[in-house]
């Protein structure tokens, strides 16, 4: 045995050496874990606009036609296509016959890197498929549905229009935010024309701030008994509608992550909600896609920031929705994630973050029984590999001094303001703080996708095994079979079982004349539950993770029978005598 393995290893080694030479890429040498000579070259140290993401997705689909398909699942508010990559080994079955993993990013338009992280996932899976056994088996068993940006309109707005790191959070629908009957009449004004909305300060005899004598980028408050030099005027902008408030009615306000149809609440209870669940065409398209893909068993949504792996419930009122058996599985997967992504903590939204209604992760779990995480990407731990000390701003100044060489800050510059007179405009750029600097992007993308792959790996994997026959005399025999699930997740989350969300799993025997059929409750003590109607197709409520369910038939004839299991979220498997 050992010798055989060694031989194979040598043969594989020789083969890869051969292909290395054949590539004539003598300037590269493969680093472990990364496609070194990909069919599609993508730089993961920069950001992509919507068009940039779509370009790359089209290249992936074109380069890997056997494992990647691109489709538009709907249109955004402004009419952009919502592109989704379906990635699976199509030669081993239809995508809908395999447990599915949904991945999306960028629901909040300023939380951009979910786009690149999702794209990295698609790229990694397709480029590693050729020579990585684990990925080959994974794409044989599972399907990935990857939609890098589910907020394409405002993603582009974030990059191409003046914004802060926090804007726009919404999509591009323009509402009347200040309640004056006019919509979007006082938006952001990029006074210095640099594409970033930063801060305005003004010299004032009553101001309480000075510029730090050791670091003129910083504004510091003077002592209680000292006279200051500057006053803060807030965000760069003007009072566009003459109501005495700056930038008070711009794009958005609403929150696409308060628009999902589980325990949805209106705006006065849950700020940011719209008219009713799935008011937004982007979210509606996803909902319709997911409802048409009952095979989706896991979901991941990428946000920023703070370095968190989040699970629901989003709202305290939903505490009872998430029950113990399911939380055990959530915990097992996410604890592994904490090891895989240094600096990230596994948290529960309602108690560790804030209590919200109408979020995506609660919808996936509440309405579909899908195990779902939201990762808040980027964490200041990644800068110096230690927990940040003191005020976040101080660390940001240090990062920009030592690691990004001043590239993250717009220096204070004087500007003649139509309402405030002479002001100075400056501050951190919109792509700093919440977004990764380029040099951290690829590593964190890989770690988060590795976590998501681990999550997808643990969607159910079913097999029919341990089939036994027993002669009962009188031309009758009993056939028992075990349906084994060799992964963590059950075919039905307990939420799913509570509401009968998804149909039962069907275990069917064919090629035998069935007299009676049972689910075995306790084999040792002969405890069975009989299914009187259609006993050849036994309905099994659930196949739990890492264990199995046993079924039994009494048949009067049939020696060449086969047994299949068909589960919406657990895929299909069969056994033949």
């Amino acid at each position: 045995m050992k010798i055989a393995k060694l031989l194979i290893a040598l043969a594989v080694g020789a083969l890869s050496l051969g292909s290395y030479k054949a590539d004539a890429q003598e300037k590269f040498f493969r680093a472990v874990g990364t496609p070194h000579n990909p069919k599609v070259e993508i730089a993961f140290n920069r950001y992509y606009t919507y068009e940039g993401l779509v370009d790359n997705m089209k290249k992936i689909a074109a380069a890997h036609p056997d494992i990647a398909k691109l489709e538009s699942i709907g249109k955004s508010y402004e009419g952009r296509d919502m592109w989704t990559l379906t990635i699976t080994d199509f030669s081993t079955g239809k995508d809908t016959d395999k447990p599915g993993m949904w991945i999306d990013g960028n629901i909040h338009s300023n939380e951009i890197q979910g786009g690149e992280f999702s794209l990295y996932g698609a790229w990694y899976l397709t480029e590693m498929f050729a020579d990585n056994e684990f990925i080959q088996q994974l794409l044989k068993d599972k399907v990935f549905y990857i939609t890098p940006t589910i907020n394409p309109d405002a993603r582009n707005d974030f990059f191409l229009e003046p914004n802060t790191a926090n804007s726009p959070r919404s999509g591009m629908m323009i509402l009347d935010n200040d309640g004056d009957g006019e919509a979007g009449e006082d938006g952001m004004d990029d006074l210095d024309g640099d594409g970033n909305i930063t801060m305005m300060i003004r010299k004032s005899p009553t101001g309480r701030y000075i510029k730090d004598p050791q670091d003129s980028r910083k504004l510091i408050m003077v002592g209680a008994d000292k006279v200051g030099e500057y006053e803060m005027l807030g965000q760069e902008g003007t009072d566009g509608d003459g109501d005495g408030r700056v930038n008070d009615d711009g794009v958005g306000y609403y929150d696409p992550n308060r628009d999902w149809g589980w325990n949805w609440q209106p705006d006065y209870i849950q700020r940011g909600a719209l008219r009713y669940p799935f008011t937004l065409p982007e979210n509606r398209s996803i909902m319709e896609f997911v409802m048409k893909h009952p095979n989706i068993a896991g979901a991941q949504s990428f946000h920023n920031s703070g370095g968190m792996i989040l699970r629901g419930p989003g709202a305290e009122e939903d505490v009872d929705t998430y029950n113990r058996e399911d939380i055990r599985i959530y915990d097992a997967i996410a604890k592994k994630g904490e090891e895989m992504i240094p600096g990230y903590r596994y948290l529960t939204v309602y108690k560790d973050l804030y209590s919200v209604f109408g979020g995506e992760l609660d919808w996936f779990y509440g309405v579909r029984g899908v195990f779902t995480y939201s990762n808040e990407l980027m964490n200041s731990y990644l800068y110096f590999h230690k927990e940040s000390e003191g005020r976040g701003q101080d660390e940001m100044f240090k990062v920009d001094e030592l690691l990004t060489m001043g590239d993250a800050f717009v220096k204070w510059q004087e500007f003649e303001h139509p309402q405030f007179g002479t002001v100075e405009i400056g501050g951190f750029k919109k792509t700093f703080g919440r977004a990764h600097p380029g040099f951290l992007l690829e590593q964190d993308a890989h770690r988060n996708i590795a976590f998501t792959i681990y999550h997808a790996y643990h969607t159910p994997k079913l097999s029919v095994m341990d089939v036994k026959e027993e002669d009962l005399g009188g031309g009758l025999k009993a056939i028992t079979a075990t349906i084994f699930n060799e992964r963590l997740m059950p075919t039905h989350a307990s939420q799913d079982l509570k509401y009968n969300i998804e149909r039962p799993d069907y275990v069917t025997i064919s090629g035998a004349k069935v007299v009676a059929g049972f689910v075995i409750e306790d084999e040792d003590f002969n405890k069975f539950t009989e299914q009187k109607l259609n006993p050849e197709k036994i309905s099994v409520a659930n196949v739990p993770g890492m264990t199995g369910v046993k079924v039994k038939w009494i048949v009067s004839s049939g020696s060449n029978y086969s047994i299949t299991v068909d589960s919406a979220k657990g895929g299909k498997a069969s056994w033949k005598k």
Partner: protein
Amino acid sequence: MKKTLLSWLLIGGMGLSGAAFAQSDYPTLSQLNQRLERVASNASAELTSLTKTEGGKDIWVLKVGTGQLDQKPAMAVVGGVEGYEVLSVELAVQFAEKLVADHADALEATTFYIFPNMSPDAYEQYHASLKYERRGNAVAVDHDRDGTSGENGYTDLNGDGMITMMRVEDPLGEYMISKEDERVLIKADKSKGEAGKYSLYKESKDDDKDGEFAEDLKEGIAFNKSLTYKFPVFEPLAGDMPVTQKESRALLDYLFEQWNIFAFVTFSPANNLSSPLKYNAGNAKKRIVTSILEKDQALNTMVSDLYKEIVEQKAYQQDNQGTDGDFFQWAYFHFGRLSFGTPGYWVPEYKDSTGKAKSNAEVNYLAWADSLGMNDVFVPWKEVQHPDFPGKKVEVGGIKPFVMTNPSFDKVAEIADQHTEFILKLAEMQPKLEIHNVKAESLGNGLTRVTMDLFNNSAIPTHSEMGENSRWLRKIRIDMDADAEKIVSGNKIELMDSLEAYEKASLSWIIRGNGNVTVKAGASHAGFTSTTLKL
């Protein structure tokens, strides 16, 4: 008795004068469409189809008004919220007919939106060859969530063209014959030592052989069980998510664009007009608000009193003040508007010569019907052969569908008259903004101080307490049209959260220069007012 006689005479008289009432039964959808088109031929009314349901039926809105329709406070009148309440459709349509024909003066101050029928797919069942009280639309739904849609609806076991009840003699059953009326079955009270003798089901077979009867109906989603307030997730007729249906989305999308609606009158089972909703401090203060707010309760009481002055029928068993996912509560809790609801009709309380009331709604109904000689409202229990109960005695019978929720058609005219009067009286109470005490004082050197009071001359505030919280109601906006650079103090645009009933707010500006300035104040749902003065 005298009163009944009088109203009979009244109806007779009306029947003679109005050709539109030549009908003897509730109209079909095509008859309704014709009547709506006739209303729309009036210059003040516009008929629009918001969408077509899965069953291919139009969801209509009649927008009725004159002049600047969107600048006037508006009321919405909604019918067909439950498909089996055919009366509700008739009340909404008759309101529209009377409004354009006899009450055009009401349009000077108010705009009306009439949504006559939100459940046309279900409404049709009233006229179908198989009649039953239907709620759901024509979408295929797997109500019992077993993986197959609509595979166990009703079966007309006795072939009488309607679905009633079936009872099975069964010592394990939970029902027994009522002591007050042997036609009626009631639940046995085990605590009183009563034993059940019957199982009771809707008239049906176990088509899918799962041991349940009529649990997976061949009808879809019920409009009045699928809105966002307390959405009963995964329940039959509700579905997986709220507001998924064409008609509910089309209606809400339309309403969210109509900023001038200040109140709804919904004809549906929920009733807060016979008695107002009750304020509960605990539920009003929770994050998810489930009680009417305190100030709105006072308003509800006032409007309920108005209703009871106009609508004569005394409340009986009107304890439905909202059900999960319904429209009436949505309009208040999730849309922030004043929301009033009534079924328009209910079976009156019947007391026999001894003055004793009945303990059960069906017993009460049958006693009342008997007293009026209505002998076609009950299907006598009759044995049938039932494939799912071999060897057991199965009987089909019971009160006919529709008769308890909808009066005979000859009663409708009076009900419609009273409800039309109520809606018009309520419209008269709408918020009314006025400007008073306008003053222009010269301060010398070309400066003028302009002061005035903005007054809500109405018993109804500009914003319900709930509406004040809602971003879907606009604030009161006061515009001073002087050039910004001429306004020395005061705002060119000012926003105000609300004005209470009969509340005033004082406004003041100092303006440079001379000429005319105009101040305009209001919000779409509270109306607008303006004044022009010389500096």
